[in-house]
């Protein structure tokens, strides 16, 4: 089996193991707390208590999406990084997983919020119960006597409408996120994940980095890491939307033109410029057909050298250069200059 294929499978296996074991860890904690929450909620009379486990949803969603990648001949967990001839994680896969994990984290916060509301209301109900139980025997006797003459409504310890609403709203917030995760699909949600992964900000210590990727590097990032996979997934229709949304994201951080005006030439430093690849796309088909008609009967051009160069690895170049260096010696070249013979020592260098 191909060495790269083996490395890819190893990397994929490791990445999957780490990811799913973390999800399972969160999942089992959530399962315990959901179990006790369901019991508590039913005890105080909340209706329609059906609490899904968001970690299970996440797990199943990732499995489902990974199958879509596999059908397209890709892995959601690993990819070959051509430039460095190594195996790394898949950019698309990582963007999706991080987005879903963020949603899981949000769902956990909502669940905590629901737990607090439930605890508050349970506390109130328990206090009411306790208050009833702590009436002195004399007072109890007098109340019972009064009840003979004045009808008294039984004390209702069930949830009020407002309390039901509070609990239902808090639970719905959690369930909404769970449903959002379940409905995640590549066609409708991949662009949002990619925009987040590329243009999202991060904080390292006290330093806030506005965007994960500099605007000027984004076109190349798309061209090398994202567009090829989108084409394999038959999602190239998403490319214009992705480009537009990225441009809008980066535009948000443009300085106020009143304080600092950016020249057109420098704009690519602030907003990704995808036009250079659009132009190349138009010419590519033209160039391809011209290339196909080319043969060396017409001579050899710079383009021919460039085509060869693209396919030669850095390691081959290094090896050959070292071999040639051993052979290259300074050569005396006698050149005529103004009718005088001048001995000129010229060192050949391929660097």
């Amino acid at each position: 089996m191909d060495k790269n294929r083996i490395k890819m499978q190893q990397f994929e296996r490791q990445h999957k193991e780490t990811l799913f074991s973390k999800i399972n860890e969160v999942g089992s904690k959530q399962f315990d707390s959901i179990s006790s929450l369901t019991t508590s909620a039913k005890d105080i009379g909340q209706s329609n208590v059906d609490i899904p486990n968001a970690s299970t949803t996440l797990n199943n969603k990732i499995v489902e999406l990974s199958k879509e990648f596999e059908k397209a001949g890709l892995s959601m967990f690993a990819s070959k990084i051509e430039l460095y001839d190594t195996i790394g994680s898949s950019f698309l896969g990582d963007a999706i997983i991080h987005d879903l994990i963020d949603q899981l984290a949000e769902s956990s916060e909502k669940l905590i919020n629901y737990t607090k509301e439930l605890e508050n209301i349970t506390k109130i109900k328990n206090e009411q119960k306790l208050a009833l139980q702590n009436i002195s025997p004399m007072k109890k006797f007098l109340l019972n006597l009064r009840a003979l003459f004045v009808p008294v409504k039984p004390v209702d310890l069930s949830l009020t409408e407002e309390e039901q609403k509070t609990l239902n709203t808090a639970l719905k917030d959690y369930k909404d996120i769970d449903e959002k995760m379940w409905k995640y699909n590549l066609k409708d949600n991949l662009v949002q994940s990619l925009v987040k992964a590329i243009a999202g900000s991060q904080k390292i210590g006290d330093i806030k980095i506005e965007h994960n990727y500099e605007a000027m590097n984004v076109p190349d990032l798309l061209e090398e890491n994202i567009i090829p996979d989108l084409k394999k997934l038959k999602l190239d229709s998403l490319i214009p939307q992705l480009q537009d949304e990225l441009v809008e994201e980066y535009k948000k951080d443009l300085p106020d033109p009143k304080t600092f005006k950016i020249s057109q030439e420098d704009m690519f430093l602030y907003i990704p410029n995808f036009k250079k690849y659009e132009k190349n796309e138009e010419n590519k088909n033209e160039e391809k057909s011209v290339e196909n008609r080319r043969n060396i009967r017409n001579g050899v051009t710079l383009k021919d050298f460039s085509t060869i160069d693209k396919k030669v690895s850095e390691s081959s170049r290094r090896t050959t250069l070292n071999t040639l260096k051993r052979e290259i010696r300074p050569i005396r070249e006698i050149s005529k200059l103004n009718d005088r013979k001048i001995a000129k020592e010229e060192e050949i260098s391929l660097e």
Partner: protein
Amino acid sequence: MTLVYENALAEVDSILKLMPEDLLHKIPNSFLNFIAQKKSKSYIPNLDFDLSLDEQNLLEETRTILSLIYRSYLCN
């Protein structure tokens, strides 16, 4: 120098002869002389004039030397 490199230089030499003058002038004479001296005198490159350069059945070493020439002398 190993035989394979001598053969590769022979291939490179025959390819350089197909270059236009303006490109060839970018390669120093000293390097051209080096190729002329070190190339194999017995190896006859087999170029197919109906194919493009990339489609030619060249030695890997030839392609690498062409890449080095391109990067060192030809591209801006």
